[in-house]
């Protein structure tokens, strides 16, 4: 019993010696000696674990704040403002600062979902199947609705049967290919994005 009590007393005294608050009260500096503890001695910066660091741009508003993305085994572990950027000089607003939370969100859907006509549920489907099915539907709709000339002979070579919406959250290269394929290749004219909203 006594042994246990002694051991507890020793632990308590070690704990109090290691705990920052009593040491600060006894005059040690909160930003120097008192900031160290046996725990802190063994801590390493989390970012040390990153095996890849790259530059990214905040995916929200058009201010274009630059970010540094730290990744480990292909997964992001930390995102912060890039201090070199003349736009944000390392700062981010609550949205930009939360980017990691978006990438790792539990609400993220990592698989293809398919809802058949009149069905009341989503089904998981292979990506390749979905791509083939979408390509077939696009061709079918386009072939049904393409107009080569108006009744008076004016050439239009377009379809009003397919529409595309979105682009302002995508890369420039992605926008370029959407306009090129859907507009230049398939004759879709209603290609629109958030610029009007």
């Amino acid at each position, binding site marked *: 019993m006594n042994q246990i009590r002694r051991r507890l007393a020793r632990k308590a005294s070690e704990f109090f010696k290691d705990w920052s608050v009593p040491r600060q009260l006894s005059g040690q500096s909160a930003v120097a000696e008192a900031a160290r503890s046996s725990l802190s001695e063994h801590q390493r910066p989390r970012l040390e674990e990153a095996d890849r660091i790259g530059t990214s741009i905040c995916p929200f508003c058009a201010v274009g704040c630059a970010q540094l993305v730290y990744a480990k085994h292909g997964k992001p572990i930390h995102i912060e403002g890039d201090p070199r950027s003349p736009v944000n000089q390392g700062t981010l607003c609550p949205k930009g600062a939360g980017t990691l939370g978006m990438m790792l969100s539990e609400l993220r859907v990592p698989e293809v979902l398919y809802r058949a006509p009149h069905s009341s549920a989503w089904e998981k489907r292979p990506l390749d199947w979905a791509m083939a099915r979408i390509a077939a539907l696009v061709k079918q709709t386009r072939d049904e609705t393409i107009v080569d000339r108006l009744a008076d002979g004016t050439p239009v070579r377009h379809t009003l049967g397919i*529409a595309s919406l979105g682009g302002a959250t995508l890369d420039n290269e992605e926008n370029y290919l959407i306009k090129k394929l859907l507009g230049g290749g398939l004759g879709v004219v209603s290609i629109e994005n958030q610029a009007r909203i």
Partner: protein
Amino acid sequence: MALWDLANSDCITVMGSNMAENHPVAFRFVTEAQARGATVIHVDPRFTRTSALAEIHAPIRSGTDIAFLGGIIHYLLVNDLWFRDFALAYTNLAAIVEEGYLDPEENDGVFSGLLADRGIYKHDTWQYEGQISAAASAENFEQTTEAFEGGVARDARNPPPTDPTLQHPRCVYQIMRRHFGRYTPEMVEHVTGCPQATFLKVCDALARNSGRERTGAFCYAVGWTHHSYGVQIIRAASIIQALLGNIGRPGGGVLALRGHCSIQGSTDIPTLYNMLPTYMPQPNAMTQHGSLADYLKAQTVPTGWWNNLPKYMISLLKAWYGEAAQPDKGFAYDLLPKLTGDHSQLPTTLAMVDGVVKGQFVFGQNPVVGNTNSELVERGLANLEWLVVRDFAMTETASFWKKGRLVRRGELAPDKIGTEIFFLPSAMAAEKEGTLTNTTRLVQWHDKVCDAPGDCRSDLWFVYHLGRRLKQLYADSEAPEDAPIRALTWDYPTNGDLSEPDAAAVLREINGYTVAERRQISGFLELKDDGSTACGGWMYSGVFPSADENRARSRKPDRPGSFTHHRGWAFSWPDNRRVLYNRASADPEGEPWSERKRLVWWDAKSGKWTGLDTPDFIRDKAPDMRPNWEENPIGSEALGGADPFIMEPDGKCLLFVPSGLKDGPLPTYYEPVESPVGNPLYKQQSNPAVKLWRHSANGLHEVGDPRFPYVFTTYRLTELHCGGIATRAMPHTAELQPEAFIEVSPELAREIGLNNLDWAVLSTARGEIEAKALVTERLRPFHISGRYVHQVGMPWVYGWEGYTRGDTANVLLAIFGDPNTSIHTTKALTCDLRRGRLYGTRARL
């Protein structure tokens, strides 16, 4: 202007934006300017954090911006407080307008040329005397040339007639004095509800911070564009800035604060119906666009930079159709689809409801939340044969068939909805590489740092592989209508196990290359109209000037103590110029207006323009060069060395716009389409050219309809971004803004017996929604026409998916558009508000 250039400003007016909350990091340059002594002004219906940080907050009733800005123009003109040396030299203030021109002052509130039954204007009487001025190419929308009947005449062979003494009764200066004559401080107070004293404080601050030594800036966001006269609001600010000499100069400008990370890029390289990459018009069957020759004839302006259009258009056709684009075949121009009307998002929504549209792609957008009249959007989606939604988490647009308002209300059921729906998960910025263009044209590359989970793929992957499959499906077709997809160049290299297409290869194509050697071109000056060059977007030319030099990836900011506009940090189009029209930062002789405000100047020794930014001017065109009209100069030769506005046909800043605007050459105050009051300025109540699409589920409220007595306005929040699901599925931001709310002034709350945190119901002819009330002095009633007008506000960012949920404000809004842009109105409509809940519509979302 560049974002960081705001720090050089002496007076910053934020209007139509809550910049501190919605563009927080850009706002740091406003506070920096303030720390250096600048005056910050916030003109806004609400008192927000932006107002709290401003020296002056001027409250105005939602939608009355043109009355306020017109009042400033009036004040500057009658008190002679404009920057004469600048405005006289660089604007069309002295130009003389046609005799047939009638101003709203003398024509019952509308301009001459209105075809009232069609709601469009003919522009003939808005021209300079004896001339027909061509609109800069990008502004030639379908009705513009139609209104000219026969197309814009191409025979301008003289500069516009002018009267530099400004005495001619039909010179732009005199027309403006008459046009804005009744926009007095009394009238401003009467229309906007802003006290005269506050309004005059704003005018005084603007006037004091103008001239050689001082500059001011305006910052705006969708608080200006989301109106039935949004373009004219921005025009009004541009007129003020041109009169005060605040364009092309350090700390001067009109800064658009745009919403999405690539909204600028997706406008430049447009996923928009009416344009081809970098502001060339999409061919239109209703105009003389039948062949390439017709198109170029109709669209190539004789004078100004846009005269280069044929080089850019033919290079685009080479980039898209490669071998098929041969000179004897009109460079395959006939493979491009032609427009037959307005195919923008608003009429397309109605076309979905009407069954014209059968299949739709949705890329990272969420129209059920973001589009006006959400229930109509749901009806449209339910009427599709197929729908492909690409996003990173479930969106309202993808799940409308299960959880939508119409389904919850029992009007629709999943078994009645035949739409075949695909949800394809997308990769995000750090999981793919490519460029995003920020709101100041800064094209910034982002790296791929990590791998996207599961089946998440970049949109580049999706579009590339869809295109590959379609090319296979069409490979054997000989039908002429299938020629475009067969001819389309589509050979992008792919990398890795996932066959990810190489984004750099796409950016190289956008930059442009020589066809024979496939050598990257260094900039748009190398583009030719003979088919020897290919270029996917001429304004971006220079971003990838050699095979391994990606300037969007450059990360070399200026060193502390030196300032050359951070030209080593990424790339800004065009030609890495950071401030557009920066020739105007020097006086007509080429000297900086002052030492304090120097930016670009003429160096006589080297015979070149030089300075702290890349000159937005022909490098060796001397300030005293004048066009020789005897020789019929074309293109840039027709612009002199003191004409900084190189994209305009006459090199001048257009205060009065002869061609290119669909609703008038000068901004004119009209009431919003839905308003509780009549127009105090004119007999004409609302914009006569507004785009209306009648539909039984899209009813509009009459002026002063007693059933809908309050002004309704919407906005977003620092933490929750637009209609996209992103921030609602992001734990931190969702926790910070846990549910939807309606902002109500204490006065209105008292009037209808509403307490803070009570449930309340908002209603319009389009629908009803509920949310908790936040009773706050941030909203105040306005005293208009002898009575109080109440305003109600609500963030529009909510839906039924994500961690943070609530009713979608866009249920209340209607589908109608600005005449120039087809942009919807979200800032000023009318509504009713009552205490209580919507019976039976939902227990929980």
